[in-house]
């Protein structure tokens, strides 16, 4: 029995992480370049393969063939550890994301943990070590400044990130991401309660704190993944390349890919928590309960739905990046500590009041 579980988990790891998420990372790099080009009235990479889709492969080859240079003045051990520490946690958080309902009677989640969001926050907060180690081990001024900025930024926004999920947990009374999605599939997505039990005064009233949560969660996710309105740790105009200035070749690529992997996992989490995960809107093709048998094609549709939502969210990430200018550092800290922290706390109280009164 045990080895069957292990093999099933291994297949899910290989398919979800290595065959879907990593190519999605490469594709999102391509999408970033094409979309930014379209926004700026350019063309973007369109030479390698159809529509330039193989550009990511060419980039990967380039990274592999470049000289992997380690400067003399760095702390070698930490310097080598840092890129892995940014990439690995991002991929580890894949474990608890339910990327589909069921396929051939097997739950489409690698580890069906009962503490999903907690696990994600615990692992994702390790990413900060990668960046801080990179900045400090580089032993050079720009990476150091980038590292310092990353430390305070990521630690500050983790608070509002965690607090923004609390109302959701209060409403569903559940920390298992699979069950949260199941609940949303039956009774309306957190932000779209238009069917099932969600179609009621209570459901509509609860969308107010959930919408505030969603905004705080999304913005904090931008800050956590160092995406553009908050990309102060690397900000080219001030710090050359920030924490990865001293890196080259594949070690640089790991930072680069880690950022995109974190972006994909962040989108996946946002989709799972607020936009109904793998479920189709209006309760279409929703299984009766978590244990009911569903045909394989419905399972595939659910997986496709999840990734369609994630890709949509990634495109949103990209458009935001090419729309907004970078925040100033004091504005960033003010936004995190003075606004989001308080609003998220108040939001928790508001949710509690609504749940108590209605």
């Amino acid at each position: 029995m045990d080895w069957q579980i292990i093999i099933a988990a291994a297949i899910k790891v290989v398919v979800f992480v290595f065959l879907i998420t990593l190519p999605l990372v490469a594709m999102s790099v391509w999408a970033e370049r094409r979309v930014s080009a379209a926004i700026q009235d350019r063309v973007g990479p369109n030479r390698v393969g159809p529509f330039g889709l193989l550009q990511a492969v060419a980039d990967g080859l380039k990274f592999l063939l470049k000289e992997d240079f380690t400067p003399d003045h760095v702390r070698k051990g930490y310097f080598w550890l840092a890129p892995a520490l940014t990439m690995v946690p991002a991929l580890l958080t894949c474990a608890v994301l339910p990327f589909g309902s069921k396929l051939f009677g097997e739950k489409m989640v690698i580890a069906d943990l009962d503490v999903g969001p907690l696990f994600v926050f615990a692992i994702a907060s390790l990413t900060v070590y990668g960046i801080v180690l990179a900045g400090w081990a580089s032993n050079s001024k720009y990476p150091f400044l980038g590292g310092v900025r990353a430390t305070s930024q990521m630690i500050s926004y983790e608070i509002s990130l965690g607090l923004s999920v609390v109302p959701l947990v209060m409403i569903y009374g559940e920390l298992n991401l699979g069950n949260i999605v199941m609940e949303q599939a039956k009774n309306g997505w957190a932000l779209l309660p238009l069917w099932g039990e969600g179609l009621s005064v209570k459901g509509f009233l609860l969308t107010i704190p959930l919408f505030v949560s969603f905004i705080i969660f999304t913005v904090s996710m931008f800050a956590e993944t160092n995406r553009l309105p908050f990309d102060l740790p690397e900000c080219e105009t001030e710090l050359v390349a920030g924490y990865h200035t001293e890196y080259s070749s594949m070690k640089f690529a790991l930072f680069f890919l880690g950022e995109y992997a974190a972006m994909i996992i962040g989108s996946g989490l946002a989709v799972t928590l607020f936009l109904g995960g793998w479920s189709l809107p209006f309760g279409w093709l929703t299984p009766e309960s978590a244990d009911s048998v569903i045909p394989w094609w419905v399972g595939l549709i659910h997986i496709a739905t999840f990734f369609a939502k994630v890709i949509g969210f990634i495109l949103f990430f990209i458009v935001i990046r090419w729309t907004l200018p970078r925040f100033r550092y004091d504005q960033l800290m003010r936004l995190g500590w003075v606004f989001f922290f308080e609003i998220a706390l108040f939001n928790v109280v508001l949710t509690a009041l609504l749940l108590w009164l209605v």
Partner: protein
Amino acid sequence: MAKVVERPKLKWWEQLYLPAIAAGMRVTLGHLIKNISGKTKVTMQYPEEKWDEHLPEYYRGAPALVTDEQDRERCVACQLCEFICPPRAITIKPEEIPSDDKWAKVEKRPKVFEIDMIRCIYCGLCEEVCPEQAIYLRKDYAIVGTSRAEMVHDQDRLYEIGGKRVGLVNKWNELK
């Protein structure tokens, strides 16, 4: 004296950032949609699309030798272009025309005429100085080669680029 720039007083909804984000996204998404639907023509895809027909008459591309309407080479190997060429890209070795040749009344013709296209700066002085109207700057600009030797245009290549040019020739026209 320092000038104080008043910061605008923002209304509360302006301080929310969200309307500004929406306005910004309207601009970027507008460009995105126009670009994807092909309404903005942005970049010419170079090797496939070229601008050749729009090149002006005075465009200075690769220098080339021309023949006249009787297929006689116009160059008389006076070497003026060789001497005036600022980067010394032109090499000419003159030879005498044998007396039984059809064009024997001309004294000289180039035995070797080479232009080193790595050196050429496309200044057009050779065209300007030529008393025979034998060398012209054509509209060819994509001069490529895989070795230095390949980048030296010899006589055959120069005539191939130049072709025949019909028009006034000062001295050696048969009718004169």
